[in-house]
């Protein structure tokens, strides 16, 4: 019997029909039917590096938090401080389990409600938005419900009532200004704000997952297809294209952004992942805090590194990293976590975890690509950094 008959139906985003109608090749991604590509991963990748690309990222989980105590609650949940966030600010953070393993990597938005000034104190605003990975949404909801949520804090799952669209690339700023609001030009990186009116969630933020400048837009589900079409039409003259998950992966890998389930998992701690900046231990308490303080005090065993290869064969997740070209098991000093052919660098690239003594940039290693040992070199992360324009 085909597997599709036995699995629950896939969730669809408000843009699913659009994707199917425009040659989107749909795949199962974390229980969602999502486009992996439309025409070519490489062409979509290059559009984002040189012009602008649109991504349907509605599968990401969107959870809002409101009510008295929301700040304290989130502060007790996340690895970075919440209380000192400015209205409008967005912070990359982690949710860790009691042993310091990563349950998810998240973006916390402290929203600045445009109508806040007119609201009476205590009126039910939505001061926080937490964006979580699609694959972890239920896990995080369960974690919040079972362990932590105090009375008075209201958590709403807005994933299905809204859509999320990423606009990424050097032309993203002008496109978003033209279509949404000229004032967005002034929005700083990792800031966002509520837009629109009424009780429906609508947010614009200057964030992304591609290594390019860009924005992420959250809008009510009913308006998503209209906004998507408007952006594509307005961006036509600069070569705006829809981009699937395939190019999202090659872009984020070049930019060395870790992906949950690959670089990040419950068995990997934030320091090993190189996410020291995302953990604030001083004067705080959250699940895993004490375990992380212990881990931080010890020397690193394994380190996340970037790898470049001169061959054309691509190292894939799980392939062994060896210290020399001699094939013997005691040579294995690490493992690939993600690998691809880099459309920008025109060579295979990878991230992986290696024993700390082999993590210095310039270290020559070999990768076991299906039994053939190919030379590789440790390179600094990120593997690609966009040129500074202004």
């Amino acid at each position: 019997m085909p597997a599709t008959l036995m699995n629950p139906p896939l969730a669809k985003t408000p843009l699913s029909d659009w994707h199917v109608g425009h040659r989107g090749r749909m795949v199962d991604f974390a229980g969602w039917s999502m486009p992996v590509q439309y025409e070519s991963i490489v062409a979509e990748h290059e559009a984002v590096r040189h012009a602008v690309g649109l991504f349907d990222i509605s599968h990401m989980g969107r959870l809002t938090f409101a009510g008295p105590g929301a700040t304290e609650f989130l502060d007790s949940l996340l690895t970075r401080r919440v209380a000192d966030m400015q209205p409008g600010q967005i912070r990359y953070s982690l949710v860790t389990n009691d042993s310091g393993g990563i349950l998810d990597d998240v973006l916390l938005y402290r929203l600045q409600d445009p109508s806040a000034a007119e609201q009476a104190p205590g009126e039910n605003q939505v001061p926080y938005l937490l964006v979580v990975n699609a694959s972890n949404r239920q896990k995080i909801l369960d974690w919040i419900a079972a362990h932590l949520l105090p009375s008075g804090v209201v958590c709403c799952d807005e994933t299905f009532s809204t859509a999320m669209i990423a606009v990424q690339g050097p032309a993203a700023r002008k496109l978003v200004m033209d279509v949404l609001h000229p004032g967005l030009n002034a929005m700083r990186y990792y800031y966002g704000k509520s837009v629109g009116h009424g009780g429906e969630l609508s947010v614009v933020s200057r964030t992304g997952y591609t290594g390019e400048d860009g924005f992420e837009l959250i809008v009510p589900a009913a308006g998503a297809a209209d906004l998507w079409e408007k952006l594509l039409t307005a961006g036509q003259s600069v070569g705006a294209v829809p981009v699937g998950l395939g190019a999202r992966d090659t872009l984020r890998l070049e930019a060395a952004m870790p992906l949950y389930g690959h670089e990040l998992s419950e068995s990997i701690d934030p320091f090993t992942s190189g996410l020291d900046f995302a953990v604030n231990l001083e004067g705080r308490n959250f699940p895993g805090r004490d375990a992380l303080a212990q881990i931080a005090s010890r020397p690193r065993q394994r380190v996340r590194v970037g790898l470049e290869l001169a061959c054309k064969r691509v190292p894939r997740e799980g392939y062994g990293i060896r210290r020399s070209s001699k094939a013997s098991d005691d040579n294995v000093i690490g493992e690939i976590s993600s690998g691809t052919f880099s459309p920008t660098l025109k060579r295979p690239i990878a991230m992986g975890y290696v024993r700390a003594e082999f993590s210095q940039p310039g270290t020559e290693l070999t990768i076991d690509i299906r039994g053939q040992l190919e030379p590789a070199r440790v390179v600094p992360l990120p593997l690609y950094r966009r040129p500074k324009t202004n």
Partner: protein
Amino acid sequence: MNPEQLRFAKTHEWVHVEPDSQGQQVATLGVSSFAVEALTDLVFMQLPEVGRQVKPGQSVGEIESVKAVSDLYSPVGGKVVAVNTDLPNHLETLSSDPYGAGWMVKIQLDDPKQLDSLMDYATYQAQCAEEGH
């Protein structure tokens, strides 16, 4: 070559058999246009050495795309007598002419009966339609 005259394996390879100058049955092997389109963004391929003995169902090469690596399986057994050495340097040929210039390997057949298990074009088309969903 007209794909309607080819036989196809479940794993998307096509086979065309004709006798060589000594009357030996030689199978030419490639991959279908459906498979090439599904792979997209090809970056590398590796083909076998001439002279290698191959068993039916064995991998004789690999095709690497940005997204994933795929094996090239030989649906037939025998000796590799020719390899399209030009192809790895011109991967675009696989898209433009998968049933002609995009051929990959020629294998001198051990046993022509092995072809009986392969699909005709219509049956293969039905498989692709099923997979395309």
